[in-house]
């Protein structure tokens, strides 16, 4: 659907809409009797934008809504974007709620720090909440400089007690704690330099503020006297680098960061390659082989992916329906933890899309985050209609 209006000051507005139905089946019985064996959701995504002053100004509004049949915490609305952009020469100013993506790797999004993860939408960290910001972007021959002021912190979304894919203990979001005295009102900031040098792309960034990743602290619910987990958001200083190089059939990728917080200074990186076979054995299909390694020197206490190897493959069938399949296996090299993921999609007709997603978790390590998901293997089908 396209609504076009052209008043005297020449603002053209355009609306796009996407409705989805999603069904999830879990292969194993839940660990907690309150949880369900299956789950279904309806989603709505909309985007409206208008350009003014010959494109020098733009307003974008993009709301998102999910209604989940079994987990009230998964039902949520979010403003993915609501911002005004003004461009003046090499400078862009953005004011409002935005989503910004940093990074290059396939499996883990290590340096992507501006937006909070919308965890109830998807475990993979690719669904993210809108972040209020003032962003300045300056484009020069020697690269792009960006400055972000982030005045309001967004808490991560977590499944409720009836939901699957969660920690074993209930989460008490009302008790969320912050290291910063100002809590959610702490002013975070970030700066980023990005440059393309032919086949090589480099990003250097720094972030100072409240970490998007909470530490889950054990506590007692004062109302019920039951053990619970409380999200604790700590302050962090994080410097990062992301690097990509396109060399023939090879795409090389690296993300690395050094952070300092109340646990001291630590280092993490992830990197690897994707090698593409174009037109496998004379067909139209491309096969990409993915291999990435993940490291965090704080070990499993910090990240489930502290010494992990990712291998997988991507099939692009290059057909009329744009059929695609991505399979990834993540193996913990220290302990017996493993994650297997399959994602596929195919267009139906001209405005529908059917997607499949399946994930298997296995872990013997009780202190690994994947251990909590050991009974939550699932298969998910999504049907979307685009307007």
């Amino acid at each position, binding site marked *: 659907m396209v609504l076009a209006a052209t008043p005297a000051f020449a603002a053209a507005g355009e609306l796009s809409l996407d409705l989805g139905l999603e069904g999830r089946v879990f292969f194993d019985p839940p660990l907690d009797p309150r949880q369900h064996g299956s789950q279904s959701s309806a989603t709505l995504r909309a985007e409206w934008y208008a350009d003014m002053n010959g494109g020098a100004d733009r307003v974008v509004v993009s709301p998102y809504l999910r209604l989940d049949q079994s987990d009230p915490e998964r039902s949520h609305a979010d403003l993915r974007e609501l911002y005004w952009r003004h461009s003046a020469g090499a400078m862009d100013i953005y004011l409002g709620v935005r989503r910004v993506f940093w990074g290059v790797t396939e499996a883990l999004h290590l340096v992507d720090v501006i937006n909070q993860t919308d965890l109830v939408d998807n475990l993979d960290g690719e669904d993210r909440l809108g972040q209020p910001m003032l962003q300045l972007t300056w484009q020069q021959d020697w690269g792009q400089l960006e400055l972000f002021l982030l005045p309001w912190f967004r808490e991560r979304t977590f499944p409720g007690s009836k939901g699957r894919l969660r920690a074993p203990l209930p989460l008490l979001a009302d008790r969320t704690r912050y290291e910063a005295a100002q809590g959610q009102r702490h002013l975070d900031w970030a700066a980023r330099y990005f440059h*393309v040098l032919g086949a090589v792309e480099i990003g250097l960034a720094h972030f100072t503020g409240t970490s998007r990743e909470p530490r889950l602290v054990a506590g007692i619910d004062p109302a019920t006297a039951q053990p619970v987990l409380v999200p604790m958001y700590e302050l962090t200083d994080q410097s990062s680098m992301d690097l990509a190089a396109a060399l*023939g*059939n090879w795409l090389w990728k690296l993300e690395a960061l050094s952070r300092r917080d109340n646990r001291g200074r630590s280092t993490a990186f992830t990197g690897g390659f994707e090698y593409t076979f174009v037109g496998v054995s004379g067909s139209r299909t491309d096969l990409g082989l993915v291999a990435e390694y993940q490291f965090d020197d704080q070990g499993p206490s910090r990240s489930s992916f502290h010494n992990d190897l990712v291998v997988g493959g991507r099939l692009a069938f290059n057909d009329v329906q744009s059929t695609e399949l991505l399979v990834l296996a993540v193996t913990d090299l220290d302990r017996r933890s493993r994650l297997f993921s399959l994602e596929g999609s195919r267009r139906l007709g001209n405005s529908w899309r059917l997607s499949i997603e399946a994930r298997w978790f296995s872990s013997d390590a009780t202190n690994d985050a994947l251990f909590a998901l050991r009974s939550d293997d699932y298969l998910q089908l999504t049907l979307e209609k685009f307007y």
Partner: protein
Amino acid sequence: MLRLSWLGILALLPLSGGAEAVAPEVAAGQRIATEARERDRGFGDSRAIITMTLRNQRGEETRRVLRSRTLEMDADGDRSMVIFDEPKDVAGTAFLTHSHRHKDDDQWLYLPALGRVKRIASSNKSGPFMGSEFSYEDLSSPEVEKYTHVYLGDETFDGREHFVLQRTPQDTRSGYRRMVVWLDKAHYRAFKIDYYDRRNTLLKTLTAEGFTLYGDRHWRATSMLMVNHQNGRSTGLQWTDYVFGNGYTEADFNRNNLSKIR
């Protein structure tokens, strides 16, 4: 139908005896290809709407709508961008190419759902574009430096005289062993291109028609048809709403500005 079987035989002949000597048909081929480029030089920039019609063996049709933008560069290959409007599930996706004369092209894909720009490995040039019979390299600007040209002779059809030119890609990652191009003698417009696969078998034929003149010297086809002889499918392109002199700059084709593309 044209009878041109002698062209295939000619193409198998050795091109040149010694390294220092350039065969006259090679020199003539380079001259014609360079003249074709020179005649279109100075178009500055352009944009157009492309309606792509994919037809399978059973004659079933699927439609795609794209917007194309091109910026001519003085000392390098052109900058070009394609923005998808239909199908709706990929609306807003933008494909950016920086063509280069002497090295691999740089390519990026902007995925609006993720807000993410992905670098594309330059090896994908032989792959189908959006499930069509056009590959990425068919749609990129054919920089003269990336091919060896051989003048094969003249041929007249549809009341026009043509130069017949063989174009051999220097890049081993090209999907083609060679192409045969028919340029009309009056204006150096490509009316027909035969594509031969790596085994030197005729794979596809592109025909163009409805050439319209812009700015007194820049000819653009309004209709193209690519027929794949091996799988029986075809893809038609209708070019409409051509506009030149949009005032595009390099910033409009900067990878960092992809997220602003609508």
